[in-house]
């Protein structure tokens, strides 16, 4: 308990969390502060490339500690199962239509790579190692939840089926391709490759993350201002409860997989986080009846800041408590 509080306190005054808060407040106050779309995209390309590469290089250096395959399968299973739980909770806790609930559920089964990245930054500052291949697990968990969401919506008589074109769009979506691609490059070039580009992808990493979180705060704040009506108390409660439920589900899986402390924390983070890049785009194509301001507001406006400020420290402290620091 003491650990949780101290990790939390330390986390709350980190430049990362405060940058997000700055963006959020600025947008709420209708400041003209904004990051150009092209710059935001460039920052996200940098983050995906860096985190993927470092994951691959770490696999090259330490080998596959534990089994990559088992972890991938577990991640995919979690990404399929979590939407079903989320859907059930939403139908009980909110008055969302089945279609809206299915769309939201899909977001929570998938993952938020920035939440993952922020967690790795916290692990690094606490000197906790994790399996490099967790990056590959993150990539594997992006898409299955979309299939689950469409299945849930189809049961309610709505939405498109996964046609070939949609499969292609989902699986070859830019962030998955870049993450996996950089992971492979890191794994192939290994220590030597990492050393060559270390001062680009390692040293300035946290600072770039701050600017990206500033931008995410701005986008989240703008969304919250527009969509306050969406936030029924039930939906709000869901967006805080669901990450905890996802993490709780991931913890025993992590223990069964025999992951390291850091790896377990990251699997909890992945399960607890909600997508706001890949899944929204897929939902607009396949489930246009679902209201985007609902799923964007819950995912980016509530769950993301919750995880950033409180969730991640809880998951990390829990993993430390159960698996040793």
């Amino acid at each position, binding site marked *: 308990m003491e650990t949780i509080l101290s990790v939390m306190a330390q986390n709350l005054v980190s430049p990362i969390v405060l940058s997000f808060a700055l963006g959020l407040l600025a947008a709420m106050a209708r400041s003209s502060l*904004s*990051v150009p779309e092209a710059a*935001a995209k460039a920052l996200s390309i940098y983050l995906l490339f860096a985190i993927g590469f470092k994951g691959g290089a770490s696999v090259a250096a330490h080998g596959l500690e534990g089994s990559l395959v088992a972890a991938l399968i577990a991640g995919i299973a979690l990404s399929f199962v979590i939407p079903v739980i989320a859907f059930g909770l939403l139908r009980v806790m909110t008055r969302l239509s089945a279609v809206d609930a299915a769309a939201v559920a899909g977001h929570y089964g998938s993952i938020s790579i920035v939440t993952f990245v922020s967690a790795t930054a916290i692990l690094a500052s606490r000197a906790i190692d994790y399996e490099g291949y967790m990056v590959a697990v993150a990539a594997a968990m992006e898409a299955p939840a979309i299939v689950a969401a469409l299945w849930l919506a189809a049961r309610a008589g709505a939405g498109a089926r996964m046609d070939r074109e949609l499969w292609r769009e989902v699986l070859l979506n830019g962030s998955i391709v870049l993450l996996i691609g950089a992971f492979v490059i890191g794994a192939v070039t290994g220590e030597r490759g990492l050393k060559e580009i270390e001062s680009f992808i390692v040293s300035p990493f946290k600072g770039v993350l701050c600017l990206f979180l500033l931008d995410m705060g701005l986008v989240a704040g*703008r969304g919250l201002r*527009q969509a306050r009506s969406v936030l029924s108390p039930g939906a709000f409660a869901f967006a805080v409860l669901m990450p905890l439920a996802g993490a709780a589900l991931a913890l025993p899986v992590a223990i069964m997989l025999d992951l390291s402390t850091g790896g377990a924390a990251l699997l909890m983070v992945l399960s607890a986080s909600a997508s706001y890049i890949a899944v929204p785009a897929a939902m*607009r194509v396949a489930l*246009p*009846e679902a209201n*985007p301001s609902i799923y964007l507001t819950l995912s980016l406006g509530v769950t993301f800041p919750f995880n950033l400020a409180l969730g991640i420290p809880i998951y990390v402290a829990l993993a430390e408590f159960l698996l040793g620091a």
Partner: protein
Amino acid sequence: MQMNDAKRVEIIIEAPLERRLLDTISEAGVTGFTVLPVLGGSGRSGRWSREGQVSAAGGMVAVVCIVRPERVDQLLKAAFAVVERHIGVVSVTDCQVLRAERF
């Protein structure tokens, strides 16, 4: 200058559907179009802005097609099949073009 009648069709559509729209109208035989970026807007689903966005969801693009009058119906049918269930605005304006043989 020798001018000919044509139609200017402007389709404002969600960015995640851009590729599908363009493929569909190309299949319908419309091979000339231009895609313009959109910064933000407002409609029944509220105001939005591209600023700081990374995801294609929550963004739109404007597609401008200039076609001969006799082909406009074909184009609209193809476009409508994509736009129908989605957010989007389609408008048609009379215009005149140079070099009509191109359209």
